[in-house]
């Protein structure tokens, strides 16, 4: 609290909300990729031999 702080205006609040949405999207995308990669690694060989 040592520095003076300013009140966040609407435009700044919108920017923060937008950045938060992007961060959530990126996090979810990373988790999807991680789960997909892990599934391929764990079951890849077994799945490739199965008939559809």
């Amino acid at each position: 609290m040592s520095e003076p702080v300013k009140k966040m205006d609407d435009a700044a609040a919108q920017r923060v909300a937008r950045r938060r949405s992007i961060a959530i999207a990126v996090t979810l995308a990373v988790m999807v990729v991680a789960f997909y990669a892990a599934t391929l690694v764990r079951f890849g060989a077994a799945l490739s031999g199965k008939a559809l």
Partner: protein
Amino acid sequence: MSVQSEIGQADVVMEPSIGDFIQLMKPRVMTLVILTALAAMIAAPGSLHPVIGLIAISAIAIGAGASGVLNMWYDADIDARMARTAARPLPRGRVTADEALSFGTVLSVGSVVTLGVTVNWVAGALLAFTIAFYLFVYTMWLKRRTPHNIVIGGAAGAFPPMIGWACVTGDIGIESIILFLIIFMWTPPHFWALALYRCRDYERVGVPMLPVVAGLPETRRQILIYSVLLVPLAITPYFIGLAGLTYLAFSVVLGAVFLWLAVKVYRTTEGRAADAVAKQLFWFSILYLYMLFAVLLVEASVVRLMA
């Protein structure tokens, strides 16, 4: 939680940056967590697919970061009044308490679920326990109540090698318990060395660190006792077959320096020299732990490559 609310929910908040959120995760602590968990993963018997290994180490690091975020969320009131922590994002009003709490919670759940689903649930459960222990046992319960806060709370920082080991073996072996104990015994002399020269800071905010409650001479004595216990413990991985001769040599030499500094701290009791020696021990203790686990990691990697 009233003070956190006062700090974090005020309507005079600055726009946070990505850097503020990274700072909330205590990146320096995260690097040590990554190193200790990775060393245990490489040294553990068995193997992990590199992709799974990468996911595991990322989840452990993010889980550690989540603990840091939740710790800063809860401690925002005392952080604001301590010189060392006053510039953190919450006390400066760059991040609100609600944002920090949400961020920490999402990271905690995300990291535990990711580790549990993609690696195994023993590791996932250990990570969940670590985060819960750090937040509820250390931060909320012990930190402001007892001078033994970092002795017991230090366990939270000691779990990462155990989690790394569990990722590979799906179990908790005696080897991972030894690695746990090394960090567990290292934590008190490390933090008490810091508390020796930051004593007034802790006193002002009412955190009962050992120098505040028991005095500086008793703290110096305790540092020496824990250091004497730590050094032989740090050599143990060689004798249980977890590490080789390189590790033995490094742990003996580094341990000797650690002990020498602990004795210096014990003997130097007056003026600025006392603070200087405590600082020396604090910074060396960080180097000590980094080096021990780095050598363990490199040695285990070389053994794997040559096998």
